[in-house]
């Protein structure tokens, strides 16, 4: 069932007008209504597309046991609170809020609906009925960084980010740490464009980077615009984010990080149906298949693929962790001692850049 926000409002109103008919036993035989709130459109070929694929996977796996609804283009502001409340009022017992900036509103609305389970993607705040989940994208970034370190001729990469939040900073750091293991002089310049979806601005940011000697582009925004510019200008290449974007840049896409949310959605919905759901932070990665590495592009040589696969497999079997020291910060001072690995909590609050990042103002 697909809904836009306006229809949802009507349904929410209708549901509120109905008296509470169902008993608990009756309610349990009903399908579990699962709501998804997306920051952008499901047609962005990236972040939101991937979450929606996860929703479809959930429907496919659990069939009649679930009934899903999604609301797209919900800004990270008071509007998200309203949408969350409407979803909760219209009988959704499990709600996934899939963007970082929804955090405060999820916590607030969850207090008012203690019988509804909320899960907030990429967040850090939990309560009795709010869990958080994320995927270890930075593991994928380490694979991309390895390829970049091998293939970049200028040793300079650009990184288009949306906002300097830990999730993005972590990806940048992972990328440059991996690249510097290959090329110790490798540097990366993050450019924050203050939006998740403005393809023309992403493309211009890519042009600005390429015109200034950058030959590898990574991005943490939601679309393929930067990759298209990389293709057009014929630079070494870039990386797909969220989904395989080779249709847009058959030569320039070196590989892609694919988000695979489906298994988490199935597991969570099943836990809610079984009554076994608990508030926790779920953060799987390459090993669990929630983060996948897409096909390698035609430009990537065999030995680079082998190096990338080694980094990938090392992270899957646990023998390699990109955030194991020694790690210096961007000023060159030691931040993580040799042999020490950053904890998840330290990663989730990461607000510093590693050596090799030219920090933005």
């Amino acid at each position: 069932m697909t809904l836009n926000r306006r229809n949802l409002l009507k349904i929410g109103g209708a549901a509120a007008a109905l008296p509470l008919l169902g008993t608990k036993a009756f309610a349990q035989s009903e399908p579990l209504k699962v709501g998804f709130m997306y920051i952008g459109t499901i047609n962005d070929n990236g972040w939101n597309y991937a979450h929606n694929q996860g929703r479809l996977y959930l429907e496919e796996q659990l069939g009649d046991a679930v009934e899903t609804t999604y609301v797209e283009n919900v800004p990270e502001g008071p509007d998200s609170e309203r949408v969350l409340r409407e979803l909760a009022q219209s009988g959704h017992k499990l709600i996934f809020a899939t963007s970082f900036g929804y955090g405060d509103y999820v916590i607030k609305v969850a207090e008012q609906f203690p019988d509804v389970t909320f899960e907030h993607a990429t967040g850090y705040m939990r309560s009795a009925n709010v869990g958080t989940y994320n995927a270890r994208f930075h593991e994928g970034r380490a694979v991309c960084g390895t390829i970049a370190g091998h293939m970049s001729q200028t040793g300079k990469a650009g990184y288009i980010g949306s906002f300097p939040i830990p999730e993005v900073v972590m990806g940048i750091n992972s990328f440059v740490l991996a690249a510097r293991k290959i090329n110790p002089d490798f540097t990366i310049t993050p450019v924050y464009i203050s939006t998740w979806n403005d393809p023309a601005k992403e493309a211009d940011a890519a042009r600005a980077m390429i015109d200034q000697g950058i030959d590898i582009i990574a991005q943490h925004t939601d679309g393929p615009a930067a990759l298209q510019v990389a293709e057009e200008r014929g630079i070494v290449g870039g990386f797909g984010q969220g989904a395989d974007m080779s249709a847009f840049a058959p030569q320039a896409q070196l590989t892609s990080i694919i988000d695979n949310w489906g298994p988490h959605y199935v597991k969570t919905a099943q836990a809610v149906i079984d009554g076994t759901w608990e508030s926790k932070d779920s953060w799987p990665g390459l090993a669990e298949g929630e983060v996948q590495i897409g096909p390698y592009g035609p430009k990537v040589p065999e030995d680079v693929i082998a190096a990338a696969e080694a980094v990938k497999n090392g992270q899957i079997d646990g023998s390699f962790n990109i955030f194991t020291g020694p790690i210096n910060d961007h000023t060159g001072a030691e931040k993580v001692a040799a042999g020490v690995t950053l904890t998840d909590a330290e990663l989730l609050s990461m607000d510093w850049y590693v050596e090799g990042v030219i920090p933005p103002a």
Partner: protein
Amino acid sequence: MTLELAIAIIVTVVGASTPILIAALGELVVEKSGVLNLGVEGMMLVGAITGFVVVFTTGNHYLAILLAAGAGVATSMIFGFLTLSLSANQTATGLALTIFGTGFSALAGQGYSARPVTLLGPLFPSELATHPIWRVLFGYSALVYFSFAMVLAVWWFLKKTRAGLILRAVGENDHSAHSIGYSVVAVRYGAVAFGGAMAGIAGACFPLLLTPQWAERMTAGRGWIAVALVVFASWKPFRLLAGAYLFGLVMTMELYAKAGGGPLSAIPAELWAAMPYLATVVVLVLISIRRDASSNAPACLGRPFLPSN
């Protein structure tokens, strides 16, 4: 800064400024006729999806621009019918048109989001644009030259032609124009249609000139910048040209400064983002200091015309 980098920046600035300039020129003519159409963003999105679909299916960029203009006109006619024939509130109708255009383009674009197209190539043969300096003059696609030509054309039309005089008369005093026999509604329909065509072409710039794909809401608020620019430029085409390029320059320099890591990158992102609006404030202050210029807004702007009165 090397010459090559300077040229590359100019080329990017031109790309960023062109859609804003085209859309704002259309809105300028609309407002000169006394109509305020806030639906520019929506019409641009309809133009963008139309342009994209036509390029995707036929591969013909010029046909795409033409049909995008047509789609813009069709969308603007919804606004025209409501505000001119039915005398609905222009502000509310314009806002509704933006919401409509956003939703309609998203609906029409379903299934087109994973489809790449090609950009419209340069107008002149590439031999003319091999040297970097010639690239500044001859390296652009037809849409860019079109935007410059339209600045001249709009200026000439408003200042030098009888039809332009009538249009301005309708915008300054609709009842007087009506009383000497001009059809206020017909003139305004014409202006609204022109604004729609220009907004449609401006929208088509996104998939044809900037980033060869379709993405929902890909105009990302530039239609609103176009509306603001008309006021910024105090309804003057050449000032509009300067304003569009000032906005384009600020939007582009932000990215070059951040990517380049030079002295300009010390300016915080927030300040860059605020700069076009600071510039707007400064210009508005300057305008209001000059007493004569503050009256440059068309006197009937936004007022419905009711001939029975």
